């Protein structure tokens, strides 16, 4: 299930009544027009309406302690690029493309991490064993919420290239379709399809190495 968050109290786009959604998009467009006309302060309303939407996208891609910084960068980019917004698509979609591409830039500028399997501790190995031993759905879900789980996921993602990491996160973890991911990234559908397959294989190889150590 793909989550689209809009300034509607956390409700998903699909669950919104059509007129409420249209009203929300119209309000965005009015604010954009006012900002471009020189009312800079209106940008604060626009930002507050969409910061959770941006925060969720960024939170899915970058470490939590960097979310605020990357989100700020996204809003500054959105402000300077506001003149290019065409009103043909909803403002949150346009903002989402800036957010995803900024997250990609974030990982491209990070130093490639040298993370051998030995970087993981006995706690992480114990977590893997407990996941494998989980019998009920509740037990499995509880294991998935543990801190070690999050650390193992971050460790595995950190070993992927920025492109593979982005595609794995968008397609396999967030659940976006290939077409949606291609639109967000500005890449061709074929490119995303091929990369999604290769990236998933790369992730599986990493997990296999981890699981069989």
């Amino acid at each position, binding site marked *: 299930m793909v989550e689209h968050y809009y300034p509607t109290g956390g409700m998903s786009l699909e669950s919104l009544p059509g007129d409420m959604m249209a009203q929300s998009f119209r309000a965005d467009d009015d604010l954009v027009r006012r900002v471009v006309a020189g009312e800079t302060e209106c940008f604060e309303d626009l930002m507050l309406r969409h910061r959770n939407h941006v925060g969720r996208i960024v*939170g899915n891609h970058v470490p939590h302690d960097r979310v605020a910084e990357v989100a*700020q960068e996204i809003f500054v980019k959105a*402000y*300077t690029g506001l*003149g290019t917004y065409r009103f043909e698509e909803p403002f949150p979609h346009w903002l989402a493309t800036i957010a995803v591409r900024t997250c990609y830039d974030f990982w491209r500028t990070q130093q490639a991490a040298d993370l051998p399997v030995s970087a993981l501790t006995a706690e992480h190995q114990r977590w893997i064993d407990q996941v*494998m031993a989980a019998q009920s759905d509740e037990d499995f879900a509880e294991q998935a919420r543990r801190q070690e789980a999050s650390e193992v996921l971050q460790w595995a993602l950190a070993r992927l290239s920025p492109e593979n990491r982005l595609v794995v996160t968008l397609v396999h*973890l967030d659940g976006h379709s290939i077409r949606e991911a291609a639109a967000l990234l500005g890449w061709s559908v074929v490119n995303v399809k091929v990369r999604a397959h290769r990236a998933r294989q790369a992730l599986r190889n990493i997990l296999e190495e981890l*699981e069989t150590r």
Partner: protein
Amino acid sequence: MRPPDERLEKLEQALLETHRARQMPPWDPRWAESVMHEIRRVARRQPPVRQNDDVAHLVWRTAGFAAALAILLVVLLMIVSPKFVSEESGLVAEEIHLGSLFLE
């Protein structure tokens, strides 16, 4: 003991659940203020400018028209004076021939 593929899938599924269970950290109360401070600074330097579609269309249409006109003129020139074209190319050929004599 589960087969390796099944174990791998279970691990993948657990990590997928982990990703989906991620909670967004709360916003620092000063975050919006800090972003607006940066926006105001940027606004003074580089306010957003509406890109005019009409102007862009006009530029592209003019460029297309100019290119078509240039091609038309070249074609007309070749039709009206084929002799001129062949004379020009004859002179160039002669110069190349003379040049090779000097090289020898």
